[in-house]
């Protein structure tokens, strides 16, 4: 699967805004899911499942545990999909 970095960033942004019901202004790559975006651990599981669907990959629980900031997701996907 070949996907551009820009496209990854856009899809991640769109998904996070939708899943966490946040505004575009609240979204930033530096935002922490729990402290800044009001998510809990179940929200993160649900969001990661959405990413798995969108990018057609499987994300292990070990990898899931490393995710704290929005940019962790973007970086992870860039690495997995490049």
């Amino acid at each position, binding site marked *: 699967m070949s996907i551009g970095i820009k496209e990854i960033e856009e899809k991640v942004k769109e998904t996070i805004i939708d*899943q*966490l*019901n946040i505004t575009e202004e609240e979204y930033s790559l530096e935002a922490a899911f729990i402290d800044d975006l009001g998510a809990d651990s*179940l929200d993160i*599981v*649900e969001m990661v*499942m959405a990413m798995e669907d969108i990018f057609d990959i*499987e994300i292990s629980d070990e990898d899931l545990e490393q995710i704290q900031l929005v940019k962790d997701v973007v970086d992870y996907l860039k690495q997995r999909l490049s």
Partner: protein
Amino acid sequence: MNPSRKRVVVTGLGTVNPLGNCLADTWAAICAGKSGIASISKFDTTHFTTKIAGEVKDFDPLLFVSPKEYRRLDNFIVYALASAEMAAHDANLEITEQNAERTGVIIGSAIGGLTTMEREKETILNSGPRRMSPFTIPAALANLAPGNVAIRLGAKGPISCVVTACAAGNNAIADAARLIADGYADVMIAGGTDAAVSPLAVAGFNAMRAISTRNEEPEKASRPFDAERDGFIISEGSAIVILEELSRAQDRGAKIYAEIAGSGSTSDAHHIAAPPPGHPGAARCMALALQDAGLEVSDVDYINAHGTSTPLNDLYETEAIKALFKEQVPLPAVSSTKSMTGHMLGAAGGIEAIISVKAITEGVIPPTINLDHPDPQCDLNYTPHKPVKRDINVVMSNSFGFGGVNSVLVFKKFTE
């Protein structure tokens, strides 16, 4: 009756049900003798024997929950949140840091998040267990209705969920009133909720031959005490009351709808689903409730019957009422408002509590609609077709459930 126990009054009412999405619309529909039953819209009923139900209509969940919350809640929780919020608003209830620990929640449900369980089972079959939503379990557990209501309103007192099938709402209100009467809480948010218009529930009740198959005439399908009744109608919704210790309600100048005078609880110890002939457990339960309330059979003006429209319930409930009231003249008026709401399962006791309270405050005995051909064996005054204006002081509300559960509440006009 324990003489030192505190008096408990009803100060707020809220509901979402097949007749309306607020108290005013619901009561107007009851007084107009409307049916809330229609063809099922929630799923394809092609291969189902029963194709009708009492669905909640034109309800906007986003008035009560965010889109994010809505995705992860089963409707039985959403209906409870909406009803609890409306009831708290109606009561002008302010839950603060000072009173939160004396404010509790007991909401009953017959089958909780059945719809969520069905959907997520399909997820496993179609996409595998790894695709299961992490919100499946918290959306499905029955006690997540009171759990979410407590979170939303900030109630930190006693919390529980009664799961006694079709008596759950009544049991919840009875238990909540006792907690206040015995001094364990000052305010209780109590009632019932269910959202089981789902393939599994409809097919399951069909398999028991428990629900009506009058698919061509949905509005006439719920016909308690009528000779042509052929089963109950599954309905969904929630109904919540705010119960309050009397002096607290008076101190804050709350509007008082009525007093909960007492309750009774008995078991048939007979059969998983059917009541025994004559339903002696129901008669005993009504007698205990009156005794608990310190009242006599002659004090009862109106009985809001369980009246499910099943052949057995309506006959045996009639026999139980007659056994208790014997030669009492005049016999109290009876009606089954399930003729209009359908059977809201765990929420039935909640909506019938609200209707009982409104009957007292409005001086109106709600009707039993569709009683076109009275069953000769059901020979009480069921208030057919139209409501009757009358001064009402004492109302008894019956709920019976699978598993042989009987629960009776007694409401009384409030006087100092």
